[in-house]
């Protein structure tokens, strides 16, 4: 009996340990799991539903955050440039609607229509996917490459190096990373950081 108790408590420790490490989310080089989220179009969208994609520019963003808003036109431009090359933008809003009412699904539909979003804008209502990825702020970009039987994390970070003044940008991190993946090269800057709004976690 004693042995069973010890084994059980060891198993619990292992479980707790794996749970806390999971909380940190993906690192560059990790295998990525697919998800299935509702788009502002009303459809359910998974990465597997993009049959011809070579990879994805996954961007955690939202309606209300000034840093997200500052990047909306640049996200639209990324989709215009890279969808045809096989790297579509997939935007995800994970903010809890009770904490941030401007980020509800209904408000997402309005925002997508106003700004004529040319990409899928998905609602992560349970915040499970933000936890899975380790998304901390908006905008927060994750570039994933489709390989033979899996999805591989290639880049985590910012879109570029100037939020407020697009004309003053000198380093286009996301474009450089996708171009390098498409050319079969290593991503030279696989990690960057930026200031952003916190994801509004459920209280």
């Amino acid at each position, binding site marked *: 009996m004693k042995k069973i108790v010890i084994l059980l408590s060891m198993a619990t420790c292992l479980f707790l340990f794996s749970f806390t490490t999971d909380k940190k989310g993906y690192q560059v080089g990790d295998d990525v799991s697919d998800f299935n989220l509702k788009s502002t179009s009303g459809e359910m969208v998974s990465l597997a539903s993009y049959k011809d994609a070579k990879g994805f520019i996954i961007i955690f963003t939202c309606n209300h955050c*000034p840093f997200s808003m500052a990047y909306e036109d640049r996200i639209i431009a990324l989709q215009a440039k890279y969808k045809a090359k096989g790297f579509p933008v997939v935007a995800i809003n994970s903010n809890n609607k009770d904490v*941030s009412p401007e980020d509800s699904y209904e408000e997402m539909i309005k925002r997508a229509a106003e700004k004529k979003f040319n990409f899928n804008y998905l609602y992560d209502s349970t915040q499970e996917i933000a936890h899975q990825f380790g998304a*901390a*702020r908006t905008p927060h970009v994750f570039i994933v490459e489709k390989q033979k039987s899996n999805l591989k994390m290639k880049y985590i*970070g*910012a879109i570029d*190096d*100037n*939020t*407020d*003044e697009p004309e*003053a940008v*000198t*380093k286009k991190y996301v474009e450089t990373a996708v171009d390098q993946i498409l050319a079969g090269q290593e991503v030279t800057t696989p990690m*960057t*950081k*930026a*200031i*952003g*709004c*916190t*994801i509004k976690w459920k209280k």
Partner: protein
Amino acid sequence: MSLSAQKREVIKLDQLLTILNNKSDSLLVLNFWATWCKPCVEEMQEFLRIEQELENKKVRFIYLSLDFKRDFETKLVPFVNKRKMKSDVFLLDEPDYDAWINIVDPSWQGSIPATLLLTPNAENRHFHEGQLTYLELKKIINTYLP
């Protein structure tokens, strides 16, 4: 605390680095925030309350705004005046965030609010990403107060 007028300035990275050295005999509480950031503004109430309670202690508060530079006169200064903030408030004008976030703390993901405590000469440090409650902040300050 010094009687000189509190500063409201736009600063660059070299000035942030000087602040991070904390060449003073007080505990430094450095809060990263912005006027548009709701959790930051909520948290600010608690910071100002604690600041008042600790008026005679060896602790100094600096509020480092990440508002855009063009919003300095129109948004930041009016906010600071309205709240009658007594400590130094700086706007850090360094848009290439990746160049300095890790210098502040390698664990920082970049979300705000974030708070760094530095003991004199930056001998000890404590970093927290996310909104602090009154009790949480008070507890951390008491741990490091000289």
